[in-house]
């Protein structure tokens, strides 16, 4: 401990001085000698909280952690961190399922006159004004969908924790490839077509004139016999037992790579 070390430094200097000046004529009683053997001021000092040693964030964390934020005000996504830069997209506050719309945060905030945050919003990358976003959340999971092997793999902190076969889009309505993210989690809906739980993503299928904008989801199915296969309008389908297992592991905001 630093305190002990510093006092030791002091002791080395002071004790010599003390010995020199005392000269042996004063009877000096150490203070600690006055403390009785059963010190009434010495109850057990056991603490009621086990406080662990502080741990710095591991460098490794940075590469496997990603952040997302809700959109709290409709925002104009811009090509550069400036209010005069070109608008590349308009992003609203709700998803088609009426949940909060979220964006993936992809880099450091830039401080100009205001704060600008680099984000991926739906299918587009750009800069959002900080004031349009809510609080950041972070996740350490990542979903990788392989359109050749027809698998979905979930990694947490870089380690594989889940893998399952998937059904993806047909040749006419292929599942898009690229970088996306999970936007919402839906349950207790009527249609058995989607299985017990469904995740909305920021990915758009080629059927963009679909009523709700043509977004792609990750969900269960009432046709497990079709999995693995190229069978959907773009969505990523898992067998119901698999989607339930995935739902225990994958939070909203998880980035998705589809290759």
């Amino acid at each position, binding site marked *: 401990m630093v305190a002990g070390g510093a006092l030791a430094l002091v002791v080395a200097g002071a004790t010599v001085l003390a010995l020199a000046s005392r000269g042996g004529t004063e009877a000096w009683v150490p203070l600690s000698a006055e403390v009785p053997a059963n010190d009434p001021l010495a*109850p057990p*000092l*056991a*603490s*009621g*909280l*086990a*406080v*662990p*040693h*502080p*741990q*710095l*964030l591991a460098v490794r964390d*940075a590469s496997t*952690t990603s*952040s997302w934020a*809700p959109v709290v005000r409709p925002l104009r996504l811009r090509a550069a961190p400036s209010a005069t830069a070109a608008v590349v997209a308009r992003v609203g506050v709700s998803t088609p*399922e*009426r*949940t*909060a719309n*979220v964006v993936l945060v992809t880099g*450091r*905030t830039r*401080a100009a006159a205001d*704060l600008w945050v680099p984000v991926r919003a739906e299918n587009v990358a750009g800069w959002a004004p*900080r*004031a349009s976003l*809510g*609080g*950041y*959340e*972070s996740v350490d999971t990542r979903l990788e969908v392989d359109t050749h092997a027809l698998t979905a793999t979930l990694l947490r902190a870089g380690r594989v924790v889940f893998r399952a076969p998937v059904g993806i889009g047909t040749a006419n*309505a292929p599942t898009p490839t690229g970088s996306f993210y999970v936007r*919402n*989690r*839906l*349950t*207790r*809906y*009527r*249609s058995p*077509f*989607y299985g017990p739980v*469904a995740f*909305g993503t920021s990915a758009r299928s080629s059927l963009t004139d*679909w*009523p*709700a904008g*043509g*977004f*792609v*989801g990750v*969900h269960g199915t009432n046709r497990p016999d079709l999995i693995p296969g190229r069978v*959907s309008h*773009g*969505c990523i389908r898992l067998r119901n037992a698999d989607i339930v297992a995935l739902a225990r592991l994958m939070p*909203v*905001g998880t980035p998705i790579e589809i290759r």
Partner: protein
Amino acid sequence: MRLELSDLDRDGALREAAAALPDETRKDFLLRTLAGGGAALAALVLAEPGRAASKSDVEILNYALVLEYLQAAFYTEAERRGALRTRTARETARVLGAVERAHVRALREALGTAAVARPFFDFGGTTENEPAFIKTAVAFEDLGTAAYKGQAYRIDSPALLAAAISIHSVEARHAAWIRYLAGAPPASSAFDEGKSMPEVRKLVASTGFVVQGPRTKARAEPRFTG
């Protein structure tokens, strides 16, 4: 309403901020959160086996936990966002974040199933803008010290009391350190006063940092392409 500290007077500026009451839903939410949720205030075993914590101690621990969640989330986000410019500010976020995260773990472990869940936070730009970061950190650390101090005499368990006092003096160190960085007096008075629970809740509510989480789950029909 974001926390603004026009000067770094420990009490004056925060009092000013608290005078403007937050909107009703935010305040209610915060009070619910700080009150410990209500459910499962069961007796719990602390680090020393065989010693159960009183209902009052559980409430105090959960109150402390929310404040530690707040501080830990603030520093962690500041470090992760990577937007602070100076070495000392980054070092502050790194070191203090590690300590506050340790406090969170300790309180969560002590509370077990009685621990309140981590709230959602929106720190506005205060983790991404250095002057705002420093001001907010000063306010948090002074507040943390005052909050622990305000509860110390109410703690039933002597072991818990010893732990709380030992954590609170660390918060005081943090407060002095950050004040030094900010060019403010690290110790402006010979005696630090405590703050009561209602006072602290009001101050935290006035920052607007504790928010309802975004609604990302729903019982709704998927509108995907299928």
